[in-house]
């Protein structure tokens, strides 16, 4: 920590001579200590998952949800300081609502990410505030041209609108927003303590090829979180997962918790993989002895 004692890290509004904002970098540290969260952009939807660290046995299982719904079609998960995340979610909901109020349509995921990026960036410029101690993963599925305007009555011709141009419109999107306010779109995203291991796993999926289905992605997400938890084994955790499909998919275009059955199945597979990995490790150890 070269910054300590230099004085350049005491205020948000002061750069260090080599052009860094140490407050933002410390915020990133806060994120790096948080439970792992990931997002997967599958070909027909988005999955969000988080390793929720259970700090006390007195907490009610399944309570204190960490993944939040922002609008019907969009959700957020984050790693880092949970109260900061809650405020992030509040703001995201307000943005989604204000878009709906003027345009009577769901906010595009890219627009939501852009607005939240701007919001976080504003917290890196003033001495009176500190940056957000979270990195957020925003997932959403945008309409592909068949959605209707909120509240409208009547409909167009029964044969559908004429003159539509073929091509990819809407679909699943995934963005990551960092404490600096920087945001990028991703196929797979991971943040928090186990992000390195998670990113390595995500890269293996070759998500850009668009072969992974939503249901596969749910199972992969569970595996990745279980795997990422290995380095954090002394703490208990709960897996929390949500998904969003297109209108014709299992969630009907809505962001919701992954159904209990599918989640249990995904967790069973994740645990099975975990155990088989351990066995392999043991076998290797035996070989070494020979």
């Amino acid at each position: 920590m070269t910054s300590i004692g230099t004085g350049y890290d005491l205020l948000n509004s002061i750069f260090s001579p080599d052009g860094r904002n140490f407050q933002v970098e410390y915020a990133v540290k806060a994120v790096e200590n948080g439970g792992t969260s990931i997002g997967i952009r599958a070909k027909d939807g988005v999955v969000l998952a988080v390793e929720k660290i259970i700090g006390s046995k007195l907490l009610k299982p399944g309570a204190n949800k960490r993944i939040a719904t922002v609008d019907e079609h969009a959700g957020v998960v984050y790693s880092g300081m949970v109260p900061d995340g809650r405020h992030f979610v509040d703001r995201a909901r307000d943005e989604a609502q204000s878009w709906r109020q003027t345009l009577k349509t769901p906010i595009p995921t890219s627009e939501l990410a852009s607005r939240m990026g701007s919001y976080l960036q504003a917290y890196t410029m003033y001495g009176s505030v500190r940056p957000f101690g979270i990195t957020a993963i925003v997932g959403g599925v945008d309409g592909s041209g068949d959605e209707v305007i909120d509240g409208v009555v009547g409909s167009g011709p029964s044969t559908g609108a004429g003159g539509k141009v073929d091509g990819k419109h809407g679909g699943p999107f995934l963005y990551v927003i960092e404490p600096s306010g920087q945001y990028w779109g991703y196929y797979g995203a991971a943040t928090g303590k186990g992000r390195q291991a998670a990113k390595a796993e995500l890269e293996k999926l070759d998500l850009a090829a668009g072969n992974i289905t939503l249901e596969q992605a749910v199972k992969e997400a569970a595996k990745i979180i279980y795997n990422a938890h290995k380095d954090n084994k002394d703490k208990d955790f709960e897996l929390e997962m949500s998904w969003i499909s297109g209108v014709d998919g299992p969630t009907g275009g809505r962001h919701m918790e992954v159904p209990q059955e599918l989640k249990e199945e995904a967790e069973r597979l994740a645990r099975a993989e975990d155990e088989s990995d351990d066995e392999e490790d043991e076998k290797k150890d035996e070989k070494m002895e020979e």
Partner: protein
Amino acid sequence: MAYGRSAGVLNADGIHVDMQALKAGEVDLGTTIMAVTFKDGVILGADSRTTTGPVIANRVTDKLTMIDDNIWCCRSGSAADTQAVADIVKRHLDQHAVHHGERATTGQAASILAEICYANKDMLSAGLLVAGWHPRYGGEVYQVPLGGSLHKEPWAISGSGSTYIRALCYRNWRENMEEKEAIQYVKESVREAIRNDGSSGGVIRLAVLTARGVERWLFTPDDDYSKPTDDKPQKM
């Protein structure tokens, strides 16, 4: 009638001055306007008469108003009100395009317009049609009648002249018309309205919105609206 406002003054000489009646001299778009969907997009059509009571204030009015590159509207009711509303919506849509790097959809444009008409319904006399073409949504027609409600329709007509041609339009309507047929449908319908409605008249203006952009057609009484003034439409 609005309480206490409409009465004006009853003077000593007993002459009653009705303030509402004085306001009635306002320029009115006693009109025929229509918008229809067809195979490749939408067509808007309108007559060109603007009246002040019995006097024609403008005989070559352009009632087809561009509010975005591929979204147009037809205005009926008070000329001042509808122009103001169209200008405000246009400003919103321009800003939307700059801000988001993407044009608003026809539905979003119609929503903004309807919201203005709804929130100010006690002050506006505006009946509008919004029609547009968008690559993702194709051709769409929305109608915003007096109270500010929003209706999506395959085709819509409005204005004083529309009452005379409603049955005709129902009878001749077919979904998914070819462009030529649709142009003919709109032109012939407005032509009948001009024949019957004193508040509609002049030339017939059309705007065709498709993937090609907007094309304008003009038909005049010079040849009984039989041919467009140009072989080719006026490209914008």
